[in-house]
């Protein structure tokens, strides 16, 4: 079995909160995850779920309270691991007194690339992210979208094997988002692994081989998008019209929504035929019956609701 691209084992992060008697807030709770080589892996969750925390721990920007992680077999404590990874932070901040070219050259230098190699790479990747014309502009003059592109360029200019992107689509217009999607596809075609976090579920559904869902610091589920949503119970959607002057069946009256002259109701799969029977007896005219494929969004909202119902345990600081 080949080395997985990313191996996370029991990663936990506690933050002390409050000044006088600090309590610990657990922002990551024993996260265990495995990402295979060459996958596009989506890391999903609502804001505050711990996605950015996870990425920061992987980058050694912050240190975990417990647990380990390896990328391409190397521990995250090993500085050499960083040679093989690229990282795009959530809101990229760069030295605004440098031009785009200078910034990328600086980073390329940190990797140890020689002068000619550096120049070539910087030009190539500026083109690739669509900033060929803005290379000599100072970063303080860049728009958010342009900064995002520079961020993407610095994440990949050294041809890393694993690329970590934190909310890569945020702040981009649809054109920009499509460009990012294209870059991600391109990276996969080159055989690289892409690990990105997002809360835009449609992007995840479109791009990812597999996803993991994080809510409240806890892993809720991992799998192909289709697998996750197939855990859900299917429902059926019925569109109908009532007869003029006719009434709704009692059982459906509560859940039916009205759109113009039409009604829409969702019923669980098992109850489909009994609902149809009731409608028939009311004299309603059936317009359509459609099986509802649950979306990732539904799954998502259910998880959040369930998570809110269970209060997060706060622990007192143990010394």
């Amino acid at each position: 079995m080949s080395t997985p691209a990313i191996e996370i084992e029991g990663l936990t992060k506690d933050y002390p909160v409050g000044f006088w008697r600090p309590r610990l807030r657990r922002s990551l709770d024993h996260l265990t995850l495995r990402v295979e080589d060459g996958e596009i892996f989506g890391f999903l969750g609502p804001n505050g779920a711990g996605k950015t925390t996870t990425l920061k721990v992987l980058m050694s920007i912050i240190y975990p309270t417990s647990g380990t992680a390896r990328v391409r077999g190397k521990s995250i404590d090993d500085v050499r691991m960083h040679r093989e990874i690229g990282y795009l932070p959530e809101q990229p901040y760069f030295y605004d007194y440098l031009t785009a070219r200078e910034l990328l050259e600086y980073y390329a230098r940190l990797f140890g690339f020689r002068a000619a190699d550096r120049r070539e790479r910087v030009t190539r990747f500026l083109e690739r992210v669509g900033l060929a014309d803005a290379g000599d502009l100072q970063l303080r003059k860049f728009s958010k979208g342009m900064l995002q592109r520079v961020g993407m360029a610095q994440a990949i200019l050294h041809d890393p094997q694993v690329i970590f992107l934190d909310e890569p689509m945020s702040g981009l217009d649809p054109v920009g988002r499509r460009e990012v999607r294209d870059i991600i596809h391109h990276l996969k075609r080159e055989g690289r692994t892409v690990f990105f976090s997002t809360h835009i579920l449609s992007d995840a559904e479109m791009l990812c081989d597999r996803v993991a869902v994080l809510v409240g610091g806890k892993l809720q589920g991992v799998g192909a998008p289709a697998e996750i949503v197939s855990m859900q119970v299917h429902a059926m959607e019925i569109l109908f019209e009532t007869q003029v002057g006719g009434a709704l069946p009692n059982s459906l009256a509560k859940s039916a929504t009205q759109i113009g002259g039409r009604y829409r109701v969702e019923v669980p799969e098992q109850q489909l035929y009994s609902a149809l029977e009731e409608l028939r007896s009311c004299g309603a005219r059936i317009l359509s019956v459609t099986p509802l494929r649950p979306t990732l969004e539904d799954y998502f909202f259910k998880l959040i609701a369930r998570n809110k119902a269970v209060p997060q345990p706060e622990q007192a600081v143990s010394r």
Partner: protein
Amino acid sequence: MSGRSHGWIRWFSLAAIAALFIAIGFLQMRIEAETRTAARQREELLLHSGPVLKRLSLGYDSLLGDIYWTRTVQYFGGRVGNPGEKFQLLWPLLDLTTTLDPKLIVAYRFGAIFLSEPMPTGADRSDLAVELVKRGVEANPNSWELSSDLGFLYYWHLKDYQKASAAYLQGSNIPNAPTWMKMMAAQVAEKGNSFSNSLAIWTELYDSTQDAKVKKNALVHLQSLRALQDTRELDKIAQQYHQQNGRYPASMKELYDRGLLQGIPRDPAGFPYAFGIDGKAELDPHSPIILPQPWESPSQ
């Protein structure tokens, strides 16, 4: 090396820091030894003007005065015992110190002694000592000690018994002044330089000071005066003996055997006296006591 500080890296850093501190400490000592031999005097007193420095110190003048006082002490202590030492910076340092902090009485008292003492003990400038103490008396009207020091200076160094008496009198009127000051004023006016006066003055100085060096110096003078008194007494006995027996005694033991002495007399340092060739009493060559200079010796 990993990014996170593992235990052993922390310990290594701590050990390195400790080792570096030790090295730095020793290096600092070497550097100071080095710069001591160089002309550091110039840097000690960048400014000779007390009032200017006072204005520059932005209200922290008494703190600066304290700092200059410690520098004075160090300066003096570092040079004591140097052959031919003139303590040239003692006056400027004391001048600066007392300008910055006019209420620093210890500085005046120190200067009273060590500015006036002859070399090698002091700077041999009793005129400057008097000036310093006069300033001190003016700035500290409640300090009887400074008046007493002024009286001492006039009595011992300047031999101006009128002024000495006046100083003691003035001091005696200060509340909390000890009663001996009035008596001293009278005695000095009446008898001028005498054993009893000198002994009394040095004794009071010895008792009233808290400075170890001043105390030690006073003790030296007291011992020297007593020794002088003793030798004069012994000389008298020797004269009597000479008149009776036609020759001077050869030793103290001889007088003791004849019952003229109660024991073998010893000087205040514990060394026995002896008679010289011409019947003059002398100190033991091992004794640390030095008899007073002729100009210091009272006639009676």
